[in-house]
């Protein structure tokens, strides 16, 4: 009979690598012999989707207090973060993940938890970059609110945000084309698209966009187009400091601004023309 008491028993289980959040480097002494004869509640396996939150303290073996254990997901995140260091050398592959696992003191076989094409590693990296960008933009916004910085005009804001985000790719630029192709695999498209759209959304949010009409879609579509094309240009850019890319970016953003101005001009001209026609019609009918 499997008892449903997962949290306390996990403390007793004292797994080797899932360490306590509070206790960074001490490995829990695993006495396997005393654990073998547990006929009553075996250590349960929590569903992966639930991140383990703080649990009530439980006194495990040897009177040690065990509090939050990290979940498998958190361990996987740690492995992927450690693996990023090896990407320039090994590419976005299972080898890089294996090296990353080694630095954490785990066996190279831990790389088997992930796909052999490195999808998770790339998605993890993209997600981390997006988070960094969000924090950067939030900091800037705070400075503006405190009055310590000037509020940037829209085109400059967009340009800086996209540039900051693309600069994060620079250490990995050699292997980035490989990553892009993996992100386009059908299996990965939902996740990669999700990450892309949420990043664009973020940028527009911090740019102060509060539109509730169709503009919301056009703005995002335009910025997505700018971001993707600039990224592709960056892949082939060999100029010092990627200055060609930044100039390209500047031009695209300027184009977008002109386009929106032209669009509103067209709209107002159109309205004027319609009014003129109406007036003419009224005159003629009279």
């Amino acid at each position, binding site marked *: 009979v499997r008892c449903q008491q997962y949290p306390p028993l996990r403390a007793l289980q004292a797994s080797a690598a899932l360490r306590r959040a509070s206790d960074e480097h001490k*490995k829990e002494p695993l006495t396997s012999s005393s654990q073998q004869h547990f006929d009553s509640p075996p250590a349960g396996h929590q569903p*992966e989707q639930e991140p383990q939150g703080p649990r009530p303290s439980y006194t495990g073996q040897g009177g040690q207090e065990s509090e939050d254990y990290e979940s498998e997901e958190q361990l996987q995140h740690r492995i992927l973060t450690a693996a990023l260091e090896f990407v320039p050398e090994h590419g976005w592959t299972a080898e890089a993940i294996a090296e990353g696992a080694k630095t954490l003191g785990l066996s190279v076989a*831990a790389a088997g938890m992930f796909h052999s094409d490195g999808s998770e590693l790339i998605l993890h990296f993209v997600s981390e970059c997006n988070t960094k960008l969000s924090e950067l933009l939030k900091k800037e916004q705070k400075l503006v609110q405190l009055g310590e910085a000037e509020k940037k005009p829209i085109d400059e804001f967009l340009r800086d945000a996209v540039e900051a985000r693309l600069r994060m790719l620079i250490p990995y630029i050699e292997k980035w084309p490989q990553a892009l192709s993996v992100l386009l695999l059908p299996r990965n498209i939902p996740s990669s698209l999700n990450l892309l759209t949420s990043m664009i959304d973020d940028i527009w949010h911090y740019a102060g966009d509060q539109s509730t009409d169709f503009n919301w879609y056009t703005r995002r579509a335009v910025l997505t187009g700018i971001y993707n094309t600039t990224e592709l240009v960056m892949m082939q850019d060999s100029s010092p400091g990627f200055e060609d890319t930044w100039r390209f970016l500047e031009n695209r953003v300027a184009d977008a601004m002109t386009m929106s101005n032209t669009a509103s001009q067209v709209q107002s001209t159109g309205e004027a023309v319609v009014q003129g026609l109406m007036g003419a019609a009224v005159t003629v009918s009279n």
Partner: protein
Amino acid sequence: RALLSPPAGALRALRGLAAGPEMHFGFQSVTEEERRERIYQVFESVAKKYDVMNDSMTLGIHRVWKDILMHKMNPSPGTLLLDVAGGTGDIAFRFINYVRSVRERQLQRKLKHHQNLSWQEIFESYQKDKFNSLGDSQVVVCDINREMLKVGKQKAQHLGYSEGLSWVLGNAEELPFDDDKFDVYTIAFGIRNVTRIDLALQEAYRVLKPGGRFLCLEFSHVSNPLLSRLYDLYSFQVIPVLGEVIAGDWKSYQYLVESIRRFPPQEELKAMIEDAGFFKVDYENLNFGIVAIHSGFKL
């Protein structure tokens, strides 16, 4: 007969567990002790014809299953593999081949990056790597049955495998290895014959390094009803006959087929693996469940 019983059996007797609980041997009911003895005898008698029988029973498909297991493992050079119940060495040889080819590719890539070095430096690095064709990977084949190990060693010699390979006599329920030693633990078509599966799983957990992987390739349950009927027909009508014709041993293959039916299905085995402490336990059905690969990590 008593002289031939495995060391672990003697140990168990010493511990006073002489008349163990009722267990199954195929569709018969036997004690724990008897089961171990009878299984030992089964493999002792089939050892020489083991590979031939595998090929004829599964029409060669067992090779594909083992290849799939190796691809799933995707070992990188430097991996230490423990192959339990590895008898005739199928998994071990595949591991060596795989690691060798990965290593070759690694070396080629390194050489490509060395475009700007002098010839002297390239020569030196090549020399250094040449004598490391396996990249420090090693496989230990452990089996409880002396005859199976003998056949395995002969095969290795015949096929030319010598580097990175070692053969150890041992019981899966009580492995003669230290804790936290191996990167990967595999047991291919062996766990069915272990008398106390829970002990074997616990031993697997013990000898694996943190982050290490447990892989089990085993016959499992077919859920598709039509296929299940065909499979039963083939198993009970054809296989023992093949056993008699090719190996001259009907009873052993009758045992084989019955033991497959008695083995826990996929979900139950998954639960047992989780109980031993493994995380991220999952299984992959091959051929609609005729065979399943279970995988777990020691985290």
